[in-house]
């Protein structure tokens, strides 16, 4: 009795294994196709994970990462107790929050306006022109903005015509954030509307019909039908932008940054670049990068479970 049980047990254990081996063999072509991708990710995204240990070591270039001695949390203590850290954090978060506050509603409003347009040629021209800046790099778009606000630019010419003193916005501390946020909105509001327009075109016209029968006016139709129709996209994008709160946009900021606006403009990423790559202070820069990476990960996981709990379509 016992014997037979043992025997069948072993056989049933072996059978799935053999089945599994057969499936693996059958899929060998698929694995072969995955090899290049696998190698790429192992080398260029997983191997750098080992480099994170630099944040916990006294990194000596000639010894290499492995041989360098451990120092525990020393670099984090130095970082968090420095006067620079709260300043960087505040700059980064402030710029991000301004971006969300003004930049998030802009494409939604634009999509709502565009949705009212019936003349196809007009709609298409507006879209073609407002989408275009999205495809330009920040170097080029920054150049266009600087031309606009420069000493001989349109902005100051208009100010002078109005009898006001010209302002040098590129070096103005008090206007730095406004300049960053408004130029970013100008570059992306058109493009950002696409996803909302797609959501709008997916709304069932019968919902509007029902709202009308219930006596809803135009604004109530927008409030009760149009906006709920965009809600899942709005939730997703809002949550994503919250998750990226420590990402204030290196490329743009770097273009607009100069010694005069270092006060409000120095963010985590510009600091990491400056002290890490230019200053070769690898440990502190790695620690700062790790702090940003961990906070970003925690935020995005929290955000995802939040929208899932709200009953909206989540990221995973």
């Amino acid at each position, binding site marked *: 009795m016992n014997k037979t049980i043992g025997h069948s047990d072993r056989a049933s254990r072996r059978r799935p294994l053999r089945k599994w081996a057969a499936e*693996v063999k059958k*899929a060998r*072509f*698929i*694995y072969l196709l*995955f090899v*290049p*991708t696998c190698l*790429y*990710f192992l080398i*260029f*995204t997983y191997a750098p*994970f*080992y*480099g*994170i240990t*630099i944040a916990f070591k006294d990194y000596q270039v000639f010894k290499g990462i492995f041989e360098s001695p451990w120092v525990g949390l020393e670099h984090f203590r130095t970082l968090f107790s420095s006067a620079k850290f709260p300043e960087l954090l505040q700059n980064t978060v402030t710029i991000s929050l301004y971006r969300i506050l003004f930049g998030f509603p802009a494409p939604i409003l*634009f999509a709502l306006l*565009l949705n*009212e*347009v019936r003349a196809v040629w*007009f709609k298409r021209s*507006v*879209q073609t*022109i407002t989408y275009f800046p999205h*495809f*330009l*790099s920040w*170097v*080029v778009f*920054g*150049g266009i*903005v600087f*031309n606009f606000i420069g000493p*001989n630019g*349109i902005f100051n010419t*208009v100010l002078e015509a109005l009898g006001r003193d010209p302002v040098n916005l590129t070096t103005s501390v008090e206007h730095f954030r406004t300049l960053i946020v408004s130029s970013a909105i100008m570059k992306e*509001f*058109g493009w950002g509307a*696409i996803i909302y327009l*797609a959501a709008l075109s997916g709304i069932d016209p019968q919902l*509007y*019909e029902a709202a009308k029968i219930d006596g809803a006016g*135009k604004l109530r*139709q927008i409030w009760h039908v149009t906006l709920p129709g965009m809600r899942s996209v709005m939730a*997703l994008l809002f949550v994503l932008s919250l998750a990226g709160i420590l990402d204030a946009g290196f*490329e743009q900021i*770097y273009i607009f940054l100069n010694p005069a606006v270092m006060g409000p403009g120095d963010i985590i*990423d510009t600091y990491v*670049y400056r002290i*890490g*790559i230019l200053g070769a202070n690898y440990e502190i820069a*790695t620690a*700062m*990068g790790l702090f*940003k*990476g*961990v906070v*970003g990960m925690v935020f*995005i996981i929290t955000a995802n479970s939040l929208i899932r709990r709200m009953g909206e379509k989540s990221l995973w």
Partner: protein
Amino acid sequence: MVNDIGQGRDNPSSQRMAASSGLDRNPAWAQALIYGVLATLTLICLYPMLNVLAISFSEAQAIYGNPMMVVPESFTLEAYKYIFSTRVLLNSFGITVFVTVFGTLLNLMFTITGAYALSKTQVPGHKLMLWMIVIPMLFGAGLIPMYILLKELHLLNTIWVLILPKLVAPFNMILMRNFFWSIPDGLEESARIDGAGELRIIWNVILPLSMPVIATVGLFYGVNHWNDFFTGLFFIKDNTKWPLQVVLRSIIIDFNMLNMGATTPQATGDMSRLVLQPENIKAAAIIFAVVPILCVYPFLQKYFVKGIMLGSVKG
């Protein structure tokens, strides 16, 4: 105007028309306001760009005389002649063209093969493979570990640093995987019954069906290579190896042409000193970088919009 509002509300025929397109029609004054706001926004986008274009073709006097122009007042190509005489800009243009063309080809090869493998959900270990590309979207090691890795691999200061670390963008791979995944299995099965090998199936069945998504992802990669600024900034110190955007930054933002292998504006004689100014040289450099984007813009608009739609169907 009162009449118009009345029509929108009461006239049954207009109500039926409005119903077919969803929302109520606006009264005429509101509609005019909407068109006005949109036209203004469009002009705000367009005006600075036209201004740069006009300045790039203008002589110094015209630029200071009428800085707000949209049509060049005096036509000259001196600024363009000057930027084309700088060796570093042309050199960086060559580098970026190579990186964009060759890099995008490699991107597509890696992304197509990987995405096809990931679209086969029945394969043992599928979950593991999927997580392998999802984790990098959630957490990255940061700039410095990457820098040290590239240093160890001796990729710093080479053209390959612009291509190899960016071979696969996880988002693009998932976009493509979702597309492959939505292709009915029956198509592959019937090709297999007809005796087609695995490679043949991909080449003759999957790829022809996937041209829209391949074009979309290819353009995503291409534009990213063209506009790539920080890879060059972070990982290439030698300015003769800089890609276009990094050189553009030193022209447009710093106006630093000293090491550019060109004769400085002052040295080219009195005539051109009246013509050449930082303003029109910067403007010409901007236009130089915008023109290639403009040339492919019709495709960009079409396929990028398609990509956004594909991405929003399945996250």
